[in-house]
């Protein structure tokens, strides 16, 4: 008798496809809709093979209209279906902002639970893949600020599958952000069967004593690289956290880590002002102020639009900037 979990090596984008297929096989009410998601399999191939397996009634090429996709998905979700709506890029979600802000996120609240919107909005996001203008925005905080929707960001294939399944099973709307830089950067073992990663729980990727490094999405790899180099060069050990969910934040994990290390650097590629990093700072202030040995530092994108890709590397936080922040704080 073997209890070994059967796994396969998948990239993140393959794990995302696998999560949708897993749920669609199990539940007839799960639908996929968006632009080019059918025959084309999505511009990143995240829905590849789904239409062939589940048919045009369940994997639906919609007209090219983001508000229309989200707005009709709200209607589908209120009436017995669980739509997974794909935005081609997070930077294209703005026409649908009204639908998400005034309807998807507050229908449960407005109707005291009479109507609900169990939908997932998937959106590739983030810079660093040499994408054209507007394709690289990281506007997660527009949605963490929005009451009534959860915001999830995996950084690897395992979490992507587990979190996407958890998002589809969630009774409320979830914005599922997919860092494009991580789509094909790693291939890791992913269980073939269904499993979930709990929404609202971060992960400690590496134990350390001197400083907490807190990141999500594509910045997780940047932070891991910085942590490795700091340990080798300076003997500074970092407690590396991948938040995985941006609303609700994993307060226990952040608190435990910062109370242990007494120091924190938060890294995100979105602009610093109004970024989720500020919520993490506030959380640490609320829970761990007297444990701090130095001020908290944020390493973020600039308060500028994400520039065109010839200069985007100068916008994005990199391991060098993170290392400098670590040194500044440890030597404070």
């Amino acid at each position, binding site marked *: 008798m073997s209890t070994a979990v059967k796994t396969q090596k998948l990239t993140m984008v393959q794990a995302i496809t696998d999560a949708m297929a897993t749920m669609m096989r199990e539940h007839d009410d799960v639908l996929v809709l968006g632009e080019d998601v059918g025959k084309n399999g999505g511009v990143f191939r995240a829905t590849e093979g789904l239409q062939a397996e589940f048919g045009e009634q369940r994997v639906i090429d919609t007209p090219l209209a983001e*508000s229309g996709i989200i*707005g*009709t*998905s709200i*209607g589908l979700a209120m*009436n*017995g279906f669980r739509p997974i709506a794909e935005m081609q890029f997070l930077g294209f979600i703005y026409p649908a902002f009204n639908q998400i802000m005034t*309807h998807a996120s507050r229908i*449960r609240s407005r*109707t005291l639970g009479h109507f609900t919107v169990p939908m997932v909005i998937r959106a590739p996001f983030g810079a660093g893949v040499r994408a054209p203008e507007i394709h690289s925005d990281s506007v997660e905080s527009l949605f963490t600020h929005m009451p009534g929707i959860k915001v999830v960001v995996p950084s690897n294939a395992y979490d992507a599958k587990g979190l996407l399944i958890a998002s589809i099973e969630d009774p409320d709307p979830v914005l599922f952000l997919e860092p494009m830089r991580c789509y094909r950067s790693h291939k890791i073992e992913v269980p073939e069967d269904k499993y979930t990663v709990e929404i609202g729980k971060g992960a400690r990727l590496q134990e350390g004593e001197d400083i907490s490094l807190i990141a999500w999405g594509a910045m997780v790899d940047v932070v891991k690289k910085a942590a490795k180099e700091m340990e080798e060069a300076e003997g500074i050990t970092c407690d590396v956290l991948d938040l995985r969910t941006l609303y609700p934040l994993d307060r226990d994990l952040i608190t435990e880590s910062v109370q242990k290390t007494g120091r924190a650097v938060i890294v995100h590629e979105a602009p610093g002002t109004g970024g989720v990093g500020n919520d993490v700072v506030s959380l640490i202030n609320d829970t761990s102020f007297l444990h701090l040995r130095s001020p908290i530092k944020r390493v973020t994108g600039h308060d500028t639009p994400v520039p065109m890709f010839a200069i985007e590397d100068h916008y994005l936080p990199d391991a060098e900037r993170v290392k400098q922040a670590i040194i500044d704080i440890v030597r404070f």
Partner: protein
Amino acid sequence: MEVQFPIKQILNEDGVVVNSEFENEMTESLTKELYIKMLRARMFDRKGVNLQRQGRIGTYVPFEGQEAAQVGSSVVLKEGDWMFPTYRDHAATLTYGHSARNLFLYWKGYPIGCVPPEGKNIFPPAVPIASQLLHATGTAWAEKMKGTDRCSIVYFGDGATSEGDFHEGLNFASVFNAPVIFFNQNNGFAISVPMEKQMKTKTIAQKAVAYDIPGVRIDGNDIFVVYFETKKAMDHARSGNGPTLIEAVTYRYGAHTTADDPSKYRDQEEAKRRRETTDPLLRLERYMTNQGYFDEAWKTQVEEEITKEIEQAVEDMEAFGPAEITDMFNHVFHTPTWSIQEQFESFQSRMKEEV
């Protein structure tokens, strides 16, 4: 386009039948039912305005003049159908079966006012203009996928046709052949902006051509044409033929809301003249008189019954007690997140201290 999309009428302003297509179905009992429902809507509306004036509810949105459009289109719905009103469509929601008490509570700022009775799929009034067209399309599309014969009706005004969601709603519905009735009440004004500044087209019905769906332009103050054309569109939708755009040409006699002063932007004589000539209730009274079955004693009796019902609803509204404060916290998510839970607990302890 005005030639291609003429305003259909069954009753003219004098209550004379000008189109006998449905005359067999225009029975005394149907006529009286429609009349009673319109009268009920009007009396509810006038009560709403009065309650606002007396400070017993907040800002109220009156619909007087649009009773035929709303009653005629909603009375044909069946149990399980979906209704997506704006904030001016409580004649429609009331007729479909919303509770008068909850409608008053809505205008009193109570969260429970958004909750429809069990079995009535009535969405809360859409505030962002035209956004609800997509929900109607989505719910209708869901019914189609489930294989039922249910449909959605969505209300919106002339101003809403300028919004992107109007186009997206009609386009999605036509592409997916969703059983939805797009019921436009063209009352000529988006608050103060008249139709000719809103669009270059002379009709709204003609916009259906762009989506290759039926577009019908009707006299929105003629209850019979509203009733029969909406029924036709619903039968069309229920039998799998997709959406219809109906433009009901009407007029609101009063202000945009109780906080609005229409004398600033339109001729009040016009509203007065229209009340005398085009009023949907007067028109039906004229028809009933012509048919020989309208009498004032009957009307008085009906009014008394409606008054009783509405007074009871007002009483129930006022007896409801304070709004449930915890509603604010309890329904944001199925299970509150830690931040909401903590804010709730902190709120509760503040409340205890105050007591």
